[in-house]
């Protein structure tokens, strides 16, 4: 028998960015809020304290802040003819665990979504015709526009203390020749902080990009360029480019995290309670499955605990959200054969292509210097900023040098043909390390009928529940786009006059490789939209089926973005919170009539 706790107004599953934002918004609205985080307590001290945190082996190599796969993981297969096998060791993607979630160890690249990517299908059909989109590509509109989300992008940037260079503010050009991005949508206000300084690598990329004829801009970075106090009174210090950003907690209080930017305010809030080591098993429903009554979780001692609540916010990492919906029986599971069902649908990822340039011994790039969100990008081939009619694929890629700090165990490139060990290898790494840079085409990834999530029939987590199964592989569109982007990015690399260039795009034989890091930007599975036949939650992130359940995160994206997702995840959380505060609480029920 589960222990039953005192009922609360709202329970939040997961305490990363979404959990923290929703906890703040809902306590501000006067609600009592319990947040359940399955991982341990984490914060700048001790998890990010200097000098202990400057330890590549413990953090990036042994994965200290990431999900503990021994408790739960996913299984993966390339197509439905195969038996999925477990993702046993972290590699291709690195979900977080613990207070702050992936928001504690993310890099800090903080974008707004490109406006056309929020209405992807409509835009492509309008510009290129309905037949342009391949039949098995099931891209959709988000159901919310850039203009609607703009105030929430702005709010998130102010909470995060984001550094950047605006292009236009209220229609007035302010960022020309200053590092603004001419492809960026209009803003209601400037970034709270000016852009960070640029590494030498980013400067080389900027110069080369301009020479080739593109439009370099400063990446928006949730790493501070100066001291900052956010609207919650949380204080940040200026980033010193220590190079230990992605995979680490920030000892400088410079990288935005739920722990640094929101938790200090929540700690003073009597209506808020955070319970760690609390792994939610399912959302409990009434017998007729129209309303949630709360959640059941397992505490640190292994006891089952029931937390009754009027409102359930599912705010864990993308695939955990999908998993919890499937385990709880909320929304009809997707069936790839019939195309019916919504939970598990539109699973998408990111379509990356990387080129490394190795220079001679007189060019020093000092790759140990860096900040996770910092760098220079070009958007000439992102979104629909270039004519797609002749290229034969959907989607785009920003290109950038984002030198986040390359460390020696994981980041020693060598010239082609170098052996993997011995004196020749040793000489090569010594001659190369401080003389190389890496640039990425951070490609958008489209959703397809055949890429989806469901429950695995063979493998279980430590709680005896079926693991989530990913059926996922690269499709023709992804390969075409990767090859196009490689061809467009290579001239920038060549313009830098490197001694060697490393890298190659995907080819027709490329399959999703679970063994090498790509990004942790997984999308979809509990997609938002305007039609309950093709979305699991409505435009306010509210379940179509169970009106007091809101599912927030990149799980709501109908396809992957060219940019990193966190800025859009945060904006959607604020957008949903406003709808809950101003509409739902006054009149609980569906916010959109199906």
């Amino acid at each position, binding site marked *: 028998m589960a222990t039953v706790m005192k009922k609360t107004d709202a329970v939040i599953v997961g305490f990363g960015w979404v959990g923290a934002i929703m906890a703040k918004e809902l306590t501000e609205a006067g609600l009592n809020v319990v947040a359940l985080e399955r991982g341990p307590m984490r914060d700048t001290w001790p998890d990010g304290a200097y000098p202990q945190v400057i330890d590549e082996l413990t953090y990036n190599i042994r994965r200290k802040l990431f999900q503990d796969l021994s408790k739960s993981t996913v299984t993966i297969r390339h197509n439905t003819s195969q038996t999925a096998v477990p993702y046993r060791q972290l590699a291709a993607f690195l979900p977080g665990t613990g207070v702050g979630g992936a928001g504690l160890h993310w890099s800090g690249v903080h974008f707004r979504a490109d406006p056309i990517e929020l209405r992807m299908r409509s835009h492509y059909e309008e510009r290129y015709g309905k037949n342009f989109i391949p039949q098995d590509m099931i891209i959709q509109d988000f159901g919310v526009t850039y203009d609607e989300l703009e105030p929430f992008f702005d709010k998130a940037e102010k909470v995060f203390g984001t550094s950047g260079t605006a292009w236009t503010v209220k229609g007035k050009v302010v960022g020309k020749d200053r590092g603004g991005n001419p492809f960026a949508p209009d803003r209601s206000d400037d970034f709270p902080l000016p852009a960070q300084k640029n590494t030498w690598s980013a400067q080389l990329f900027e110069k080369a990009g301009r020479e080739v004829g593109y439009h370099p801009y400063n990446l928006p970075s949730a790493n501070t360029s100066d001291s900052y106090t956010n609207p919650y009174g949380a204080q940040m210090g200026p980033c010193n*480019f220590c190079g230990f950003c992605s995979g680490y907690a920030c000892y400088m209080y410079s990288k935005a995290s739920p722990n640094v930017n929101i938790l200090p305010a929540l700690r003073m809030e009597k209506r808020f309670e955070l319970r760690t080591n609390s792994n939610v098993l399912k959302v409990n429903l009434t017998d007729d499955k129209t309303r949630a009554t709360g959640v059941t979780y397992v505490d640190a001692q292994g006891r089952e605990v029931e937390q009754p609540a009027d409102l359930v916010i599912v705010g864990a990492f993308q695939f955990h959200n999908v998993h919890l919906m499937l385990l709880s029986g909320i929304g009809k599971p997707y069936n790839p054969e019939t195309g019916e069902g919504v939970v598990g649908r539109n699973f998408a990822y990111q379509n990356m292509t990387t080129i490394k340039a190795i220079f001679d011994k007189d060019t*020093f790039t000092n790759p140990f210097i860096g900040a996770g969100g910092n760098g220079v990008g070009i958007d000439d081939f992102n979104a629909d900023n270039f004519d797609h009619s002749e290229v034969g694929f959907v989607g785009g890629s920003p290109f950038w040098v984002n030198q986040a700090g390359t460390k020696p165990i994981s980041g020693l490139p060598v010239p082609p043909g170098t052996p993997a*060990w*011995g004196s020749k290898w040793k000489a090569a790494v010594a001659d190369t390390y401080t003389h190389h840079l890496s640039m990425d085409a951070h490609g958008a990834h489209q959703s397809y009928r055949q890429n989806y999530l469901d429950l695995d029939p063979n493998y279980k987590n430590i709680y005896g529940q079926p693991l989530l199964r990913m059926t996922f592989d690269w499709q023709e569109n992804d390969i075409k786009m990767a090859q196009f982007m490689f061809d467009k990015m290579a001239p920038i690399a060549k313009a830098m006059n490197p001694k060697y260039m490393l890298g190659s795009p995907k080819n027709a034989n490329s399959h999703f490789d679970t063994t090498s890091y790509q990004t942790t930007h997984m999308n979809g599975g509990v997609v938002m939209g305007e039609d309950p036949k093709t979305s699991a939650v409505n435009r306010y992130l509210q379940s179509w089926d169970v009106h007091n359940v809101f599912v927030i995160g990149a799980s709501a994206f109908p396809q992957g973005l060219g940019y990193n997702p966190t800025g859009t995840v945060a904006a959607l959380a604020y957008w949903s919170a406003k709808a809950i505060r101003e509409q739902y609480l006054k009149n609980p029920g569906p916010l959109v009539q199906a």
Partner: protein
Amino acid sequence: MSSEKTNSSRRDFLVKSMTLIPAVVVGGSSVGALGMVENAVAAESKPHSAPDQGEWTPRFFNSDEWAFVKAAVARLIPADERGPGALEAGVPEFIDRQMNTPYATGSIWYMQGPFNPDVPKEMGYQLPLVPKQIYNLGIVEANDWCRQQYGKPFAELDAAKQDAALSQFESGTASFKQLPASLFFSYLLQNTREGFFSDPIHGGNKGMVGWTLINFPGARADFMDWVERGERYPFPPVSINGERA
């Protein structure tokens, strides 16, 4: 190893005095002042004595295994004209110490069956073996293979034969009975690189010889005044415990 007392007092000093201050300040100079750079290098380049070798008593490996590990890492990253190699850097100690961590027991991985090791390599590691077992089984197999080929265990071969054997482990052309030779080799090589380039706090990279080789500054972790410069970073590495190379 250097005395525990020195290490902890150094660490205390760092923690107490430098909560948000760059590590470079430890040298008593300010990086803000460019004129100080040469002085800072001079002050920090005091000679350090060669690390003590051979005193580590392995806690995990038996004597045959220990002889293999020492001999193998010395070939994977050899001492040569570019400086000390993995053996001098204490990599055997590092690997032995790693064998007593959750990593080596596989407890940070999903290790529930059924196991299906024959799936394509893109699906990732699918064996039931954890690093401790990979070393135990792999070293026996490697020595057996060397005895068959050359009549002696690995550690007793000359350098050329050791390199030839490692190449065949790497490519998988050497056939092991209990696990793929290339799998064993990949763990050995990865752990050797880890031991050569991780902070000395983990037992390897003694004297920060790995970092010195590639000009990685270790735990300095403040480049506010270097971020925009395309020139050689002049400061030698420091470790978490405050040692300087």
